[in-house]
């Protein structure tokens, strides 16, 4: 296994198991998956393995609404130059949910792009964990790989654990990761209230704005998702989950 800082790259060939999604040369795949408790969580639709071949475009957006327990391991193998993979998601937890993402992106060839953007709200006694590992293989020069995971805690008991990891074995790459977990600022809330925005509205506005880049990414397939997310945020902020 590779160790941080001075690892050795071990080349394990791509395994094409059951349920693998392959974005063939030049192909575009877009998937928006909304996980609602009434659909049994909807997690079955989330692919465990994606292979991105030459010049393909893969866009995956996962929305996890309150009341869903989720455990999503997703492995991404980028095998062809010019491929791009965007995975984004948001989760809204307000009760005792457990939401886990474990995303492994392997850049196996030169000149490909991956982007991950995850945003979440953790309230109640929920727990969120996000493991994200980006590996850039030897010779995979020109790779651009970005990973962001940002969270807002809305209760004292909720827990968020984020573990970003970069393993880079090529020289000419652009890679970054960002991870934050914080609370809504009291100064911000007072500022909004001083303009006549009620406390609850101020919190909802701030959280929806925080999630909106991911909601926007869901695009047309996500129609109605914005309203659904807003209603969910309202329930979590109001403690009615």
């Amino acid at each position, binding site marked *: 296994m590779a160790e941080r800082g001075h690892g050795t790259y071990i080349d394990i060939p791509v395994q094409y198991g059951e349920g693998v999604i392959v974005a063939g040369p030049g192909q575009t795949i877009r998937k928006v998956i909304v996980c609602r408790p009434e659909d049994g969580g909807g997690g079955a639709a989330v692919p465990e393995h994606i292979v991105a071949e030459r010049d393909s475009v893969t866009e995956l957006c996962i929305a996890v609404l309150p009341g869903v327990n989720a455990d999503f391991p997703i492995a991404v193998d980028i095998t062809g130059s010019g491929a791009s993979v965007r995975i984004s998601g948001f989760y809204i937890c307000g009760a005792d949910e457990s939401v886990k993402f474990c995303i492994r992106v392997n850049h196996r060839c030169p000149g490909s792009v991956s982007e991950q953007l995850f945003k979440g709200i953790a309230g109640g006694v929920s727990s969120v964990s996000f493991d994200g590992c980006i590996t850039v293989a030897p010779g995979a020069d020109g790779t651009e790989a970005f990973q962001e995971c940002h969270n807002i805690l809305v209760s004292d008991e909720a827990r968020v654990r984020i573990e970003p990891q970069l393993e880079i074995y090529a020289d000419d790459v652009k890679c970054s990761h960002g991870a934050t977990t914080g609370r809504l600022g009291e*100064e911000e809330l*007072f500022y*909004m209230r*001083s*303009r*006549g925005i009620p406390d609850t509205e101020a919190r909802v506005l*701030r959280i929806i*704005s925080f999630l909106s880049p991911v909601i926007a990414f869901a695009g047309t397939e996500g129609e109605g998702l914005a309203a659904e997310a807003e209603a969910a945020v309202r329930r979590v902020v109001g403690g009615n989950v």
Partner: protein
Amino acid sequence: MDGILLKINGLHASIGGREIIRGLDLEIRAGEVHAVMGPNGAGKSTLSAVLAGKPDYTVTAGTVEFMGRDLLAMSPEERSWAGLFLSFQYPVEIPGVSMVNFMKTAVNAHRKAAGLGPVKASEFLGMMREKMAFVQMKDEFTKREVNVGFSGGEKKRNEIFQMAMLDPVLSILDETDSGLDVDALRIVAEGVNAMRGPEKAAIVITHYQRLLDYIVPDVVHVLKEGRIVHTAGKELVAEIEEKGYDHF
């Protein structure tokens, strides 16, 4: 109501157990602009924070009536709906929230409190544009996140813009002149002056004479050690500038 908008009686307020306001009395009538001047640490910003209802401050004694209502019993949003506006000394950045969204939410909250339905989109945008021109803000301003990446001058102009949008009865300008260059100062002052009227009043809190060259006050107070120690007409500004605060 004999024209009295704000009546502060024997106000004491503290933060973190430290008393900052120590027996403050102040009366403001409709149509008046009052300047509150004082040295650093006199309690100027505490006064504005207490009037706006900032949660960190505790009022330990005294009363504040705003248009006949008990201001201290009202939440910050209720104070805003009632017509009170605070222009912040340090406007707060709200990442992710666009100006247009922020203002629309604020305006609609005011309308809801007044028993009105939400404002029409076209009407609202017209109103935004008009008030933006008022403080010389560019069109892109509507899409920017509230105060994020704004220069010092833009932040203060944004405060005056919001004031114009919400059309308050009593405006409190907390050191609105700090960090402003002459041009921004003039824009801000013109904005404030345009909003003067027989039904309205303003409290201009400042260290320096500068802003008061543009916004000429009716009454000037010296605030020191948490109390108003001297009150006079606009001629007091020049006296303070000449002699400082020590002899009050």
